[in-house]
């Protein structure tokens, strides 16, 4: 089972076991990882699952789609080049060990 590690602003780390094909958001919420809310259930409608993808993983994870890009533009507090909505990142075996940072606040 791939693992995903969530690093919060205070440096604390939570590692979640993720199922292949579920989203990074879903893995976080199921496991009660703080800092990821996922209010809309993975619908790219609430932007409460914003993360910063670890630089090493950016080529694997890739850029946001158009709808997600609008969400990041208008709905998150501190967008960076590594910003993604974690509900739009599908877990694969290749992403095992993925590290993402959670922002200071979700909207």
């Amino acid at each position, binding site marked *: 089972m791939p693992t995903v590690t969530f690093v919060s602003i205070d440096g604390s780390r939570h590692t979640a076991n993720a*199922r292949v094909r*579920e989203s990074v958001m*879903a893995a976080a*919420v*199921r*496991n*009660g990882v703080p800092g990821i809310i996922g*209010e*809309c*259930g993975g*619908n*790219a*409608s*609430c932007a409460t699952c914003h993360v910063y993808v670890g630089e090493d993983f950016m080529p694997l994870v890739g850029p946001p789609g158009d*709808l997600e890009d*609008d*969400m990041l*533009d*208008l*709905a998150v507090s501190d967008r960076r080049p590594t910003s993604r909505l974690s509900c739009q990142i599908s877990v694969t075996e290749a992403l095992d060990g993925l590290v993402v940072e959670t922002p200071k606040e979700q909207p």
Partner: protein
Amino acid sequence: MTGAGVLVVGASQAGVQLAVSLREHGHDGPITLVGAESQPPYQRPPLSKAYLGGAADATSLELRDQAFYASKRIDLLPAERVTHIRRFPSGTALTDQGRVLDFDRVALTVGARARRLTVPGSDLTGVCYLRDLADAALLRHHLTPARHVVVVGGGFIGLEVAAVARSEGRDVTVVEAAPRLMTRAVAPVVSEFYRRAHARRGAEVLLGAQLTRIEGEHGRVTGVRLADGARLPADLVVAGVGVVPRTELAEQLGLLCDGGIVVDEFARTSDPSVVAAGDCTVLPNPLTGEGRVRLESMPNAIAQARVAAATLAGKPQPYADVPWFWSDQYDLKLQIAGVADGYDQVVVRGDPDGEAFSALYYRGGALLAVNAVNRTADYLVVRKALAKGTPLPADLAARADVPLKDLLVATPAP
């Protein structure tokens, strides 16, 4: 307090959120979350979308892992329905399994049930509803071999089911009694857009059409009959004709109910020691504080549950979220923010024929709501404007050459 703790009745999205938020507020006593369904608590919105379409399974819909509830000391009791409840002389609930649950405080997150058809033939095999996972599994079972699907009710549930069925190549007819689709939620321009969008994809939409009976052979559906005498063949009938809030327990507690359990902006019922959240409630319009609205949506369930938890924890915070909602039909993503009730003006941006547009609702020049179809940016701008109280003047919003988000910047909140 007797130490019996908080009883949350209804292991729904609202119930889970309420229990979790109580812990986040530092509530340390026992929390019992009791629900009638046998599955662990799950998300309902995907039932009519990804689950019905086969892209999600029951496991993927679970809200939290089992271990999570234990880690938060939330005592989850599935497959038990609370049938009797009283507050005096002490808080006690009785379940259909004969269990007695004592409580200091109680929260009702009991949801709503699908309204049932009453026409002759409604009890035939092949007449389905869509409210919970069991309904969705049964519907999926009947949809697989179906050729002719009749959807009764042109609201969100009916149209989402119609879209899934049509996308699988079934013959689909939507039978709606009102003169247009989604009457309660959207303006005529949006209703008409969806009628045409379904028609373009080969689904037939009959408006002003009254179902009079469902016909069958050997106990199975074979067709439906309409008031004008027309007969439609059907091997599956799906009814999405609204919901009825579950108010039975509230009535046992003597709480005021009016089309739902009446709560205030702090999620308090008419007995301020009892809170309620989600589809079972009617609440003041969160944006205006006026009237009583029922916001049947997951975002409301979550927002209201948070409010209810804060109230129970003695840290009351009024409901301040902008209501929002979405509906997926085919490749059309409808996103709604605000409450359009009482609008007197609609501004359309974009091109409905191009399947990307938004409708902004105003009353007396004040922004109320947006319906955006494949225009997420417009939805987000309006949601933000409503949250901040920023006006988006209708005359400027109507101009195609002005990006909405420029208005957000150009007209800062007073």
